[in-house]
Structures are given as C-alpha cells and as structure tokens.
C-alpha cells in the first residue's frame, strides 16, 4: 500500500520533469571504496553542520560594537558596559537554552571543517591527483581552503572578546604591512584607525552571508567538475585510467555517506557538549588595559602567528619606504604559501615532465621527490604551530623564552630538510622494494630496494599517457560488476544486481 503511494508520487513527478532516466544514471554513479576518498566528504558535512548551527546562532547574536549594560545571568559581569556583540555571545552561552551547546558545536565544527580540507588536500597532493585533468578542481579546492580559514578567523573575531580583539589588532597590523597600500587597506577594512566601530558589523556580513555563499558556490563547482570527470581510483585488477571501480551510489554509497554525515554531526555535538571551547566570559570583553595573558590563535591561522614570533627583528628603510617587520611573516608567507599551492600542478609538471592525463591515483611512493617536498612543507608549518605554543614549551622545559625562540628559528629552517630527506628515502625504499606499506617496511626491504637500484632495475615510472585500448583489453563494460580479481562477473548472473547496469 505504502509502496504504491510512493510509486504514484514518483510517477507524478516524472510526468512533469521526466527525470527517471537521468536519476537512473546518477544512481549508478560509481564511488571508489578507499577511505581516503571520504576526507572531502567530512569537509562537506561539517560545512552543512556549520550552516545549520550558524542559522540558529544568527537568531540570537547581535553584531554591534555599541555599548550596552550587561544584565544577563552571568553574575560576575553584572552592570558592566560591554559591546552588544560580546553581551549577546555571553547570553547565548548562559541564557539561551541549548545555546552553549550549539555555539561550542559550531566552533568545533569549524576546526573539523578546516582540518578535513587540509587532510583532503594532503591526500590529493601525495597521491598526485592534482595532475591533469584535475588542476582546475585543485585550484577550486585551494580557494575553498582560503575561504574556510578566513571565515574561521571572522567567526572567531565576532564575539568581541579580549582574545579576538587582540587577534583583530594583529590582523590590522598585518594589513598595514601590505606593500605601499597597507595603511589605506587597513583603514578601508576597519573604517578608520584600529579598532574603529564598524569591524564587527563588516565581519558579520562576511561571516554569515558572503563567504558561506562563496563556499557553497565553489563546493557546487567542485562537485560538478568531479561528476563530469568522475572519481579517480587506486590502481588494481581491472582498474584503468578509462574506468572507475567501486560501489554504486544507490543503494550502497548513499547510505554509507549518509552515515558519515551523521557521524560528523555526532562528533561536533559531542565535542560541543563535553569539551569547552573559547569561554569568552573567562577572557572578558575587549579592552586594551586588561590584556596580560598569553594570547593564542586558532591553529588554522596559528602558523602565521608562530611565524610572526620567529621572524628576526629587522625593519630596513629603503628608497624612502620602511619594510615593516610583520610584512614577512604576516603578508609574504601566506602569499607565498597560497601561490605555491595554486601553482603546484604546474610546478609539479615542470619538475616531473609528466604532462599526461591521470585517473589512477598514484601511491605516494611513486614520486619520492613529491613526498619529500610535501613532508618538508608540513614540517615547516608544524614548527610554526609549535612556535605559536612557545608558552607551553617554556612551562615544560623551564628554559628562557629567548632560548626556545632561537632554537625554533634554527629548527624551522633545518628540520624540513631533515624530514624531507628521510621521507624521500623511505618512499624510495617502499617503491623499490615493493613493500606493502610504511609499517611493513623491514630491513630486508631496505636491502632489496638498494639491490634493485644498484642493478638499475628500478621499476619504471608509470606511463604518463592514458593506456590505449590495446593496453587494457580487459576493460570491462560500463555498469559491469567485477569479481575479486577484477574480471567481469557477467558470467555469474547470481552476482549481478538487476539494476546494476547503466541504461544505454
């Protein structure tokens, strides 16, 4: 009975939209089964979670720098003159029922969002899947990373508390450090000298409307290109550049992915319920006479903060201009970082002379040089993050801050070379020995790898040209199920799901 009613609704809609054959094709879309392909989905679902919780918070937050007298239920602040932004954030935390849960879950989700994007980017980088034809989607992804970081920073700044106010002052100073137009840039953004009285309102418009809209649009583009090009997949029996092997969207992958969506939301909500984050009523409102505590930023901007601490003091005057100290770590480093990310597919192509089209996901070991560069870069940013937490190092080691800083100044330059070199050697040993994985790499494997290299029989780099028809004669037909060896299963009809083929 129920089935018949559902059937009628589907039929009614099809009479008007004629969607059935398109939907049928979509349902047969193939998703590769490797876990690493789900990192991007975690980013997608945490974004959806951010939008949902964000809409709730918008209903209670007052984005205004205007002063108001706090009269909520947090007794230590009674009668205090604070900005409406700060007062309403404290209200969300204490007076809106379930408000603190939503606020904290929102903040945690922001960490997961940026973190998942970074991990997803690492997956794409180390497996070489930014190569042709996916350069365009790589640049879309890098833009999404920048927007995610910016929106995280904007959201962090909205409560107008002591920490975020200090963060905004650093942001103002970094803007001032922009070559030649820095003073104008900073004044235009803040509507005058710091702090001005418009920055909360402006960041609010960016945080809840403009940047999320851009992110949503770019996610759509990211998905559209993905659907057009289809997923890449790891090599294996029956797998080639000319096909995708995995699970069908319906009935298997959709449910798996839906499960991931609920898991991501669950993690955000559980963190929001149990793990306190950004207790702004402890920091106090933004007023400069009070700041004494060490300030730290959220990790996704923390690498800039750490680099600001490590860069040595110098402020040369050249041709009538001063090069402000904060220019190097605050302006140049992010610019170089993101420029390098944007251009990486083209830099990599120059370095490897690999101009071919790739749909088979390479294992990281296939390009030890790329592994070395990736690991070195991650080490560099990791040391910058450690520099952001100098205070913790001081507490642990009881060494003077100056010694720790000087040590880190050396480490941040030297360690990337060391880790990059080690990563290169490990990747090369894995490649030449054919060992199963990093943890399975034995002494014998190192020996074998060395012998293979000495004999000059290192396996050739996989062909950069897509295999021609002759090279993969066994490429199965579309929609065909495979057995474990990757042979088509058409002969054993028991395995064939009746709806498994794409209609011609």
């Amino acid at each position, binding site marked *: 009975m129920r089935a018949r009613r559902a059937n009628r609704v589907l039929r009614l809609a099809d009479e008007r939209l004629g969607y059935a054959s398109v939907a049928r094709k979509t349902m047969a879309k193939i998703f590769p089964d490797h876990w690493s392909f789900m990192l991007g989905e975690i980013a997608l679902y945490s974004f959806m979670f951010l939008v949902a919780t964000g809409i709730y918070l918008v209903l209670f937050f007052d984005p205004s720098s205007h002063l108001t007298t706090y009269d909520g239920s947090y007794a230590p602040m009674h009668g205090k003159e604070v900005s409406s932004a700060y007062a309403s954030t404290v209200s969300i935390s204490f007076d809106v029922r379930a408000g603190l849960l939503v606020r904290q879950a929102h903040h945690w989700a922001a960490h997961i969002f940026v973190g998942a994007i970074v991990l997803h980017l690492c997956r794409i980088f180390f497996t070489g899947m930014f190569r042709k034809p996916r350069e365009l989607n790589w640049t879309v992804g890098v833009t999404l990373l920048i927007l995610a970081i910016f929106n995280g920073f904007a959201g962090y700044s909205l409560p107008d508390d002591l920490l975020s106010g200090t963060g905004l002052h650093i942001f103002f100073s970094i803007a001032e450090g922009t070559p030649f137009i820095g003073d*104008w840039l900073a004044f235009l953004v803040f509507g005058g000298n710091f702090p001005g009285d418009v920055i909360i309102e402006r960041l609010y418009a960016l945080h809840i409307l403009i940047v999320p809209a851009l992110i949503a649009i770019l996610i759509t583009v990211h998905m559209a290109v993905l659907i057009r090009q289809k997923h890449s997949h790891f090599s294996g029996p029956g797998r080639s550049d000319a096909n*995708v092997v995995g699970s069908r969207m319906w009935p298997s992958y959709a*449910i798996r992915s839906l499960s991931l969506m609920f898991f991501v939301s669950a993690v955000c909500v559980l963190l929001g319920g149990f793990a306190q984050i950004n207790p702004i009523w402890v920091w106090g409102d933004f007023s400069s006479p009070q700041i004494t505590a060490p300030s730290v930023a959220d990790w996704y901007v923390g690498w800039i903060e750490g680099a600001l601490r490590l860069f040595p003091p110098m402020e040369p005057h050249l041709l009538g201009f001063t090069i402000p100290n904060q220019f190097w770590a605050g302006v140049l480093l992010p610019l170089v970082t993101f420029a390098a990310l944007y251009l990486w597919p083209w830099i990599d192509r120059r370095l490897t002379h690999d101009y071919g089209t790739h749909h088979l996901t390479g294992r990281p070991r296939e390009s030890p040089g790329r592994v070395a560069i990736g690991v070195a870069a991650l080490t560099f940013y990791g040391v910058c993050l450690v520099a952001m937490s100098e205070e913790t190092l001081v507490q642990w080691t009881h060494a003077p801050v100056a010694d720790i800083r000087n040590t880190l100044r050396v480490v941040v330059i030297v360690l990337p070379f060391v880790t990059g070199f080690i990563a290169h050697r490990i990747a090369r040993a894995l490649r030449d020995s054919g060992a199963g994985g990093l943890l399975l790499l034995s002494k014998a494997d190192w020996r074998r790898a060395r012998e293979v290299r000495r004999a000059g029989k290192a396996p050739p780099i996989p062909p950069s040209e897509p295999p021609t028809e002759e090279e993969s004669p066994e490429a199965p037909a579309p929609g065909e199920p495979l057995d474990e060896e990757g042979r088509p299963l058409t002969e054993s009809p028991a395995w064939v799901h009746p709806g498994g083929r794409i209609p011609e």
Partner: protein
Amino acid sequence: MSRAPAPRPVVLCFGLGTLCAMGFAAAYVLDLSTPVLGAVLGGSLTLIALALAVWSHRIDQEEPDYVEERAIGPTSSEQFEHFRQALTESPVPRSGFLWGMFGLSVTTLGAALLFPLRSLLPSMSEVPDEVLSESAFSQGRRLMTEELQPVKPDDLEVGGYLTVFPDGSDPRQDVGATLLIRVSPDQLQLPADRTNWAVDGVVAYSKLCTHAGCPVGLYADQPAQLLCPCHHSVFNVLDGAKPMQGPASHPLPQLPLALDGDGNLVANGPFSGPVGAAWWGYRA
C-alpha cells in the same frame, strides 16, 4: 508471504537513536546542563550513524564491485572545429572589433565601480598616513586612568605600573593607551635628548607593541622590562624602550612627562614617534 527479517543491529540502533532524540527533547524541557544535552543529541546522531553504517556494510557484503567507463576526454578535432565555427560566425561585420569595444567599456565600468570602495573609510578627508603619524597626546594634556582620575607621580610606587589615556579620550580607541612605569631615577639611562622626559623616575611609553600592535601588558620590575604577550617582544624600560628580544624592530614611542600646577602628570609634548606597528610609509 514470508519475508526475511530486517538486520537486528540496524533496527536496534535506529530504535535507540529515536529514544535518544526524545531524550534530547526531554532534556531541553527540563533545562538540563550542556553536557547532558550534548550526550543525548550526540548519542542520537551516533546511533543513527551506526545504524546506517551497519546497514551499508550489509549492502556492501552483498554487492560486488561495479565498474563505470570514464567517457570523458578531449572532443574530436572535427567536432571541436564545428564548435569553434559556431562560436565565431556572425552576420554583422567586424564582430571582433565590437567585442573589443565591449571589453573596453566593461573594463572601464568595472574600474569606475571600484571608486565607491573609498566610502568604506567614512571620513573623506582622512589620510591614513597622517592619522597613523598623529600623536594622541599634545603639550599639557593630562594622563587619566581608566576610571578617569588624574595621576600624581606618588600614586605609583617604584616598580609599579599603570595604564593611562589622554584626558577626554575614549579608552576603547586605544591609540592613546600609555603605560606609566616608576623606576628609581638613578637607574634610568634615557637617550641624551630625553633626560628631562621622566618625572621622579616615572616614564611613559605607548602601550601598543611596535611589532603587531598588541597591548604590551606584562611588566617585570627586575630588570625593568616590558613583554608583549602576543609575540614575546621584550622592551627595556630604562633606555627608552628599545627592543631587546623578539620580533619588534623599533622602540615603543616615549611620551615626555611634566607636572601641571596641581602636581598631576601631563604630557610635555607628543609621543616620540607613531604608535603601534610600522607600515610602508612609516617614518621613525
């Protein structure tokens, strides 16, 4: 008609997830604490996720791997040529030139539309470079505490410090935030042209770090040093707040002090330089 039963764990998880969801509603009504709300809501989401995970795992056990052909690639050159011709054919002559004119007008329009961005800085007469170089203090202006009280040198003990603002200014606009520090006068080693800038061992420096503008809020008395909590720059209070450590590259601007008729501390001139971080047009 006999049907195979639904997988037990899936049914169980969905059922418990439903109960937890009801638990969240109840916890909300009872105004229970944030961890309880998080536990029941997070529990519900976790259980639903688990149910879906087990369900999809059951499906995967039944399903083989499927293969889909990747039909994407460059268009054949013949078809591409058709596309190019369709794109460029035009019944009106010199369409290339017309498109060029279109590009020119739209580019100019785009550039013209950048001008209203200037309105982001509401004051049309404000020049950032001048505002940044301006001093919040001038000759004779009193130094006031946050509670709007004037300060006498003896309000500070040797080793004490205090944040003050120019009389009549809004403490939230922190360009005027100034640190008063009292040291014993014989320890001071101010530059030769600043020997009369201190009053009874009280010196005044801008509170904004010259590295990235953070308030330099930590003072250590022995030796007399100021530490910025953001990037750990250290300034020597005795010799004109020259940077000793960390990334800061120029001294905190110093404020010359004097006493007015009532014995209150007043500025005896502007700051020795622009406060806060440097910019490209910065002149010491």
